[in-house]
C-alpha cells in the first residue's frame, strides 16, 4: 500500500514537472521570476484551504463549507470595519463566527450522525444565505486603508517571498507538526483509517471529529484573512464559484485518499504545485474561465478515478447507512 501511495504522489509530481517543462518551453512569459512568484502566490490561498480540507479528508470526512466560511466571516469583518469598528475587534468577531460554523458542522456530523458531505453542503448554503441576509449587503467588501500589519500581510515580503506564500509555508509547517507530532494528529489518522476500531480503542471519536471541523474552519478564516489582505477585499461571489472544487482538486490530486487515513502535508504541497502550474499555464494561454473549469473538473475526475484504482474500496462492503458518498 505504501508503495502504491508513493507512486501516486510521484506520478503527480512528475506530471507537475512535465507540465512545468512543457509550459516553460512553449510559453514565452512562463519561466520568469515574476511569473513563478505570481504562480505560487496565486495558489497559496488554495493551498492554505487545502491544508484544512486535507486534515478533514484524512479523518474520512469532507468540508464543503470551507469557502462559505471564509467568505462569510471575512465579509462580515470587512463590513464591520467599514462601519467604524477597529479591525482587531472585528477580526475577533469574524473568528468567532468561523469557529461557530465549524463547531456546528462538527456537532451535526459527530453527534447527529448526518453525513459530512450533506452537512457541510447544506451548512455552506445556510451560512452564506444568512450572511447575505443579515451580516453584509454588498457583493464586494473593501479592506480598510492604512493598517500597517494588514497591508504587510497582503503586499509585504520576507526574503523576497510575498507574504501569502510565507503564510502558506508557515501554516503547512504547523499542519505537518499537528499531524505528525501530536496525539491529535495520530488520532485523526486512526479515526480516518477505521473509525469503529479507533472508537473501541478508546479514542474520543466524536470530540475528535468536532475538533477537525473547527480546525478546518479556523484555517478557512486564516485563508480569508490572507486573501483579503492580498487582493484588498473580499468578493462574496467566490462562494458561487467552483473554488471549493479546486480545493478538493488540490487534495485529491495530491494523493490524499478519500477513504481516509492516508496522506499528509506533502501531498497537499504537490497537489497545490500541479494545480498552480495548470492554472497559471491556462491563464497565460488565455483560456476562458469556464473552459478552465471544464478542464479542471476533467482532471479532478481523472484524479478520483486514479484514486479509486490505487486505493480500491470494496463497493459491496463500503455501503453504509449514509449512502454512497
Amino acid at each position, binding site marked *: 500500500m505504501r508503495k502504491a501511495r508513493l507512486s501516486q504522489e510521484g506520478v503527480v509530481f512528475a506530471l507537475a514537472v512535465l507540465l512545468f517543462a512543457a509550459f516553460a518551453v512553449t510559453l514565452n512569459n512562463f519561466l520568469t521570476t515574476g511569473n513563478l512568484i505570481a504562480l505560487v502566490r496565486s495558489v497559496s490561498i488554495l493551498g492554505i484551504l487545502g491544508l484544512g480540507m486535507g486534515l478533514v479528508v484524512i479523518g474520512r470526512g469532507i468540508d464543503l463549507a470551507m469557502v462559505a466560511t471564509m467568505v462569510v466571516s471575512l465579509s462580515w469583518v470587512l463590513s464591520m470595519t467599514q462601519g467604524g469598528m477597529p479591525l482587531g475587534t472585528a477580526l475577533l468577531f469574524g473568528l468567532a463566527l468561523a469557529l461557530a460554523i465549524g463547531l456546528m458542522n462538527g456537532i*451535526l456530523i459527530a453527534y*447527529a*450522525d*448526518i*453525513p459530512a*458531505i*450533506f*452537512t457541510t*453542503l*447544506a*451548512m*455552506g*448554503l*445556510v451560512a*452564506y*444565505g*444568512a*450572511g*447575505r*441576509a443579515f451580516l453584509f449587503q454588498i457583493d464586494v467588501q473593501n479592506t480598510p486603508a492604512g493598517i500597517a500589519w494588514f497591508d504587510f500581510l497582503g503586499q509585504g515580503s520576507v526574503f523576497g517571498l510575498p507574504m501569502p506564500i510565507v503564510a502558506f509555508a508557515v501554516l503547512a509547517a504547523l499542519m505537518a507538526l499537528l499531524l505528525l507530532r501530536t496525539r491529535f494528529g495520530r488520532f485523526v489518522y486512526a479515526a480516518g483509517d477505521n473509525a469503529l476500531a479507533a472508537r473501541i480503542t478508546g479514542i474520543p471519536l466524536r470530540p475528535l471529529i468536532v475538533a477537525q471541523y473547527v480546525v478546518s474552519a479556523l484555517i478557512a478564516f486564516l485563508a480569508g484573512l490572507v486573501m483579503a489582505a492580498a487582493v484588498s477585499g473580499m468578493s462574496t461571489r467566490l462562494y*458561487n464559484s*467552483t473554488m471549493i*472544487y479546486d480545493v*478538493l482538486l488540490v487534495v485529491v490530486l495530491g494523493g490524499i485518499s*478519500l477513504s481516509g487515513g492516508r496522506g499528509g502535508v506533502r501531498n497537499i504541497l504537490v497537489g497545490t504545485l500541479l494545480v498552480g502550474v495548470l492554472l497559471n499555464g491556462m491563464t497565460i494561454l488565455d483560456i*476562458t474561465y*469556464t*473552459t478552465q*473549469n*471544464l478542464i*479542471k*473538473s*476533467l482532471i*479532478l*475526475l481523472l484524479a*478520483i*478515478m486514479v484514486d*479509486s484504482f490505487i486505493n*480500491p*474500496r470494496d*463497493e*459491496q*462492503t463500503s*455501503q*453504509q*447507512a*449514509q*449512502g*454512497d*458518498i
Partner: protein
Amino acid sequence: MASNDSLSDRLAFLRSRLFPDHVVGEIMSKRWIDNAIPFTALVLTIIVLGSIIPDFLSLSSLSDFSRQFAEFGLVVLALTIVMISGGIDLSVAAVFSLAVLFSLIGVNVYELPVPAVLVGILGLGMVCGALNGVLIGYLRLRAFLTTLVSLIIFRSIYEIVFVKMSTAIMSGFSDSDLWLFIGEGSILGVPVSLVITLVIALAWHIVLSRMRPGWRLTAVGGARRSAFNAGIDVRLMVFSTYVASSMMCALAGFLFAARLGSTGSDTGVGLEVQALTAAVLGGTAIGGGRGSVAKAIIGSLLVLLLTNGLINLGISGPITSTILGAVLILAVFIDMRWQKHRHRILAKIYVSPTYLDLPPAPAIDAPGSPYALNDRLRSVEIIGLGEIEGPEDVILDRQDNLYCGTRHGDIVRFFGPDHKRSEIFAHIGGHPLGMAFDRDDNLLVCIGGMGLFQVAPDKTVTKLTDETNRSWTSIVDDSRLRLADDVDIAPDGRVYFSEATIRYEQEDWATDALESRASGRMICYDPKTGRTHTEIPKLVFANGVAMCPDGQSFMFAESWTCSISRYYFDGPKKGTIEKVIDNLPGYPDNINRASDGNYWMALLGMRGPALDLALKMPGFRKRMARRVAPDQWLYPNINTGCVVKFNEKGEILDSLWDLGGLNHPMITSMREHRGWLYLGGVSNNRIGRYRLPDADPNWCAQDAYWGAKP
C-alpha cells in the same frame, strides 16, 4: 371473567378491552407509515401557507404551479430512482439546464422539428447518464463526488455554449404548434407537461412496486452484497439508474424550455440541492433501499410549495436558501434517526399485553388428583437421538413408519418397525408443525410461516393453501398465514387447521404468550373448492386440533387460556363452541385421539402463580416488555410438561410425567400407535416411545379413522 373480581381488576379488564393499544404497533409496522410524517408536513404547509398568502390556492396559480411541479417532480423522481439503488446524482440540475439550452438551440435557432429535438435531448440525457453510470457502476467511483464533478463538467459546457448562443436563442422564434402545445396546452384541463410527468410517475410506481426490475433496484440499494450474492447484476442496475435519471432530467429540461422559451445564466443553479431536499423530505433513504414514487411526489410538492410560498411572502433569495439548507439538514437528521431507531421503537411499542383472568389451577400434587406427579416418561425408549432437531409433531403411517418435522425444514421418516434407519422424506423449507394423514395417505403438514402443505406417498410436495380471507377490521394483513400450527381432517375431506397468532412470526411465539391476546384462529381449507376461510376468529393461541368421533365437531386447544373447547362445524349444533376444560394446570398443545375413544393432549409447559397474576396486570407486562431485555421477561414455564388423557366430558383420566426433565423436558405432541405412545417436542432432539400397558396393541389411528386398507 369471574364475578368476584375487585374493582381494579374490572377496570384493568375494561381498559384492555376498550382501548385497542395493539393497533398502534400494528400501524407503526406498516410500510406506508414512512409516508405519514412527510404527508402530514405537506398538509400542514398547505394549511399554513394557504391561510397567510391570499390567492395561494387559486386556480390561476394552480395551473402555473402544476407546470412547475411537472418539471421539478420529474427531476426529484430521477434523483429518487438513483437514491433507491443506493447512489446519489447531483448532476441532475446540470443535465436539466443542458437540456433546456439544447432544446432551445434546436427549436429556436436551427428550427428542427420538435420530435427530432425531443429524441436528441433524450439522447443527450442518455449520454450524460451513461457517463455517470460507467464511472459509478462499472468503475465503482464514489457516487457523490463523481456526480459533483460531472455537475461541474456539464455546467461548464452549459456556460461555454450559452455565451455563444444566447443572442441567437433570444432572436430565434419557433412557430411550431406542437412546441406551443407542449409548453402551454392542456389535455382535459390538465397541463400537458403534468400529464407526461404523471404517466412517467405511474409507470415508475408500477415498476418499483410490482415488477422484477424495480424489486432488483430496491434490493441493490437495500443490501448490495446480498443483491450480488442473489445473482443480480449490481453494476448493470447501478448503471441503468443513472441513465434513467439523466434521461428524465433531460425531459424535464425539454418541458421547461417549451414552457418558458428562454434560458438564463442561472437556469438550474441550485436545483440539485432543492431536489435533494425534496427527495429526503419525502422519506427516501439516503442509504438506499427505501423510497417510492409517492415519497418523491410528496417531497417535491413540499419543497415547491415552500419555495413558492417564501417568494410570495417577499422573502429574499439568501434567506430562502438558508431555510432550504436548514430544512435539508433537518430532513437528513430525521431520516438518520428514524432509520437507526425505527426497529427499536417498534419493538418497544409492538408488544401490547391484554387482560387475562385464568381460573385457579388445579392442585397437581394433591392426593387423588388426576394430575398426580409420576415419573413414567423417564424410562422411555429414545428414537433418533441427535439426528433431529425440533420434532414438534410426530405421526405414524399404516406401515409403522414414523414421521416428524425438524427445525431445518425437513420431514424425516424413520422406517418401522424398529425406527433405527431414517431418511429425509421431504424438504419443504419451513419448520413443520402439526401433521395429519388424509384418506389417501397423503401427509398434510402445517408449516410455520408458510402455510398448509401436502406430501404424497411418492414424496411430491404440494402447497394446499397459504392464505385465507382478509378480515376488514384487522390492521395487520391477516390473509397471510404466519403460524399454522396443528391440523386434522373431517371425514368429508375438509381440512381444519389452527393458526396460533396473526401478530408474530414463529420465532417470536413466546412473545405472544406475554400478550395473551386473542389473535389466533381456526381456519378451514376445502379441497373440493380449493378455498380457504377463517372458521373461528379471535382465539388465544389456537393450537391442537382433533376430530371427534361424531364426524361433525372437533376439539381444539387454546394455549394461553389453558382451555379445551369443542366446535361443531356440522349437524344440529353447527357453529357453536362448547368449553370442555377451562382450568388446565398447564398450556395445552397438540391433541390426538387415543385407542379407547378418549384424547391425548400434551401440556407444553406448566402454569405458575407469578405469571397467572401478571396476566391480570397488562400494564405491568407492558412495562416489562419496554424496560427489560427479552431474555429476562416472565415467560410460561416451558421446562416441564406432561401428557394427559381426557374424555369428551372434560374429565382428566391419566397423566404421564418426566419429572427430572431428562428425556422430555418439553412435550408438544404425542401419538398412540399399536400400544406405544410416541412423544415429540418442539425443542427436543429426540423422539420418545412409551409402552402403554393396557392399550390395544393393534390400534392404528389411520385404520381407526379412515377404515382399514389392505
